[in-house]
């Protein structure tokens, strides 16, 4: 939910509504009674052990490690069961996975045992010291990314020590309480989440620490770096925490509390509407259906995109599997990972479309059979490699068709980077050849239009294909001779350039004349205004990364096809980018 925060107004009242600024760490708004959480610092045992106790002490450490690991696994299950965003949940799971790996670290265990044996120190102190060495090493490492793992390691250490000291963190909080503390570690957050606390405020912490990721994944508003807040807020007083703006309000007036509560209710409504929107199909205000599909590259993405309810997969990239264990020269692949990816994608697609793009790699990714090229973008890539390595093309086609022909999804196979008609015909021949082995299969064949020559030949290509899909990123780069990764020419790379639109318009016209389906799967499809214009030009479906689907859907549903067609006509007459931008403003946005 990305709507504007702060619909409530903070009036200035003497001694009331005191504002404390911090850093927004997890979104959300809450009002509730404060709970000042100040856990006692730990005291390490000072005693020495005798050599006859070494074994026993080592055993205690091993069992503490095991118990804490078990607890971490439980926490992982707990946080997986919480409501929340899939992506963040997988992040939270990854953090706990990291904790478990630390608890299983063979070096760590060996070093602790060694410390107990040689220095005759009790387990808790050995744990403390061995961890301290690692923490110090991370502290001197240059990167913030690594230093920010320190709190996690400190957290694991504390849990181990408190387990060794047989202490239990006993916290009594009521539902809806706002926890105010100096600092908080991930496992404490999960324990608080169990008690359904309303929000978290801490004096210290870093933005990318696991604590804030966990708070986000559990949907608990969290504000960090609020100076001296544990001294300011009184135990049990009502406070407001705003995780959008990163503020805390102490001693709020009744009026403020009322308006914050209203705002919380409004946000809940918005959230429900957003969920409702996910369930709706992509279409214009007048009911013209435009399926909004998703671009996928990795298996791990599949679970994350589900909640956006994409109407099929408009671009399934397979490059990630190109380097699968196998013999590239002869096209002999094991391809287990790719097959599983195809199967899981087909399950996601259901009865909708699944467009699989054949390997689109550049020569630079093929260490085994290519020399380094001066200019890889204009070099040996995409279909050029597929046609030169016929066995490779054949084996991938075979793998895709064999895997997918029995699924209910509408499978489409797409060839990347074509620049001439010969390539299309040649690939079609290979496709038909493989299809002979599957006479009952209904699979479409199509090409990517991502080079100006292909766009200009669209009407000649159309009779040979079932569909075309425009890749706007490459089309822009090749039309404008600008590499979008090169900051020196970044301003030249602009998908809103009129020439790019004219090439798309030309392709759309050719497709309409030949009754060929046309989709767009580049980044332009994710720009709501531009996406709407594409529909006006006659594009049948759009494919984008999942988080962009809601905004495109909203804009489409506000505009009629007639208006979009009119806008498209205007766009095709534009001479400059700024003219295009002016016209795009005519499109209604929420």
């Amino acid at each position, binding site marked *: 939910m990305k709507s504007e925060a702060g619909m409530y107004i903070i009036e200035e009242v003497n001694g009331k509504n005191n504002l404390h600024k911090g850093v927004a760490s997890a979104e959300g708004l809450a009002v509730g009674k404060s709970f000042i959480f100040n856990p006692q610092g730990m005291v390490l045992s000072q005693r020495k052990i005798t050599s006859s106790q070494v074994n026993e002490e080592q055993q205690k450490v091993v069992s503490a490690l095991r118990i804490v690991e078990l607890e971490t696994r439980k926490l992982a299950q707990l946080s997986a069961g919480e409501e929340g965003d899939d992506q963040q949940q997988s992040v939270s799971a*990854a*953090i706990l*996975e*990291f904790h478990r*790996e*630390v608890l299983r*670290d*063979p*070096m*760590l265990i060996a070093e602790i045992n060694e410390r107990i044996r040689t220095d005759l120190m009790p387990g808790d102190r050995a744990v403390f010291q061995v961890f301290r060495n*690692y923490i110090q*090493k*991370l502290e001197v*490492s*240059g*990167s913030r*990314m*690594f230093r920010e*793992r320190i709190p*996690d*390691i400190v957290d694991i250490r504390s849990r181990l020590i408190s387990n060794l000291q047989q202490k239990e963190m006993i916290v009594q909080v009521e539902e809806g309480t706002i926890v105010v503390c100096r600092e908080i570690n991930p496992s404490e957050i999960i324990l608080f989440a169990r008690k359904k606390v309303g929000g978290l405020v801490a004096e210290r912490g870093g933005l990318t620490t*696991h604590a804030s990721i966990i708070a986000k994944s559990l949907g608990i508003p969290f504000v960090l770096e609020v100076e001296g807040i544990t001294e300011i807020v009184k135990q049990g007083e009502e406070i407001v925490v705003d995780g959008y703006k990163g503020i805390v309000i102490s001693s709020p007036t009744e009026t403020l509390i009322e308006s914050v509560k209203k705002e919380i209710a409004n946000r809940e409504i918005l959230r429900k509407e957003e969920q409702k929107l996910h369930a709706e199909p992509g279409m214009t205000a007048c009911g013209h259906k435009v399926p909004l599909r998703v671009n996928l590259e*990795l298996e*791990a993405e599949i679970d994350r995109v589900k909640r956006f309810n994409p109407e099929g997969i408009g671009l399934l990239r397979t490059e*990630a599997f190109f*380097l699968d*264990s196998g013999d590239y020269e002869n096209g002999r692949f094991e391809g287990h990972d790719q097959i599983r990816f195809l199967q899981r994608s087909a399950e996601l697609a259901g009865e909708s479309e699944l467009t699989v793009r054949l390997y689109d790699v550049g020569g630079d990714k093929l260490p085994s059979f290519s020399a380094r090229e001066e200019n890889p973008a204009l070099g040996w890539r995409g279909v050029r490699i597929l046609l030169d390595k016929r066995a490779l093309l054949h084996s991938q086609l075979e793998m895709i068709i064999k895997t997918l022909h029995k699924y209910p999804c509408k499978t489409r196979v797409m060839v990347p980077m074509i620049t001439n008609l010969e390539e299309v015909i040649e690939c079609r021949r290979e496709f038909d050849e493989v299809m002979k082995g599957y006479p009952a299969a209904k699979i479409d064949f199509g090409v990517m239009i991502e080079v100006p020559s292909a766009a200009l030949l669209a009407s000649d290509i159309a009779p040979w294909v079932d569909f075309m899909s425009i890749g706007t990123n490459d089309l822009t780069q090749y039309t404008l001779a600008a590499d979008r990764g090169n900051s020196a020419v970044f301003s030249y790379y602009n998908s809103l350039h009129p020439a790019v639109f004219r090439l798309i318009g030309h392709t759309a016209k050719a497709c309409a004349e030949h009754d060929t389906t046309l989709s767009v799967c580049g980044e332009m499809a994710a720009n709501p205004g531009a996406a709407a214009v594409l529909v006006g030009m006659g594009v049948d479906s759009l494919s984008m990364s999942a988080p962009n689907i809601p905004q495109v859907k909203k804009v489409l549903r506000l505009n009629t096809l007639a208006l979009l067609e009119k806008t498209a006509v205007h766009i095709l007459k534009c001479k400059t980018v700024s003219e295009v931008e002016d016209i795009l403003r005519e499109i209604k946005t929420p």
Partner: protein
Amino acid sequence: MIKKSVEVINPSGIHARPASLLVKTAAKFKSDFHIHSHGYRINAKSILGVLTLAAEQGAKLEIELDGEDEKEAMKEILRLFEDGFGMMDEE
């Protein structure tokens, strides 16, 4: 014993998640697994060891595997590096 040089290509380097993945992959094999970097040699089956390498994007490391299944292990481990630990799109 076999050795191979690799480069860390994913933008965020070998932080917690890639390190978990690396250690978990290595644990599947019997071979000993060490990483050399700037004159240090760390046991790469230890997540804390891997983390203290503080290997950022562009870091060049040397992988050393020693054991009966060293070849298979090398193949899988190299793939993790080549794939950027599946985190190429991450900031």
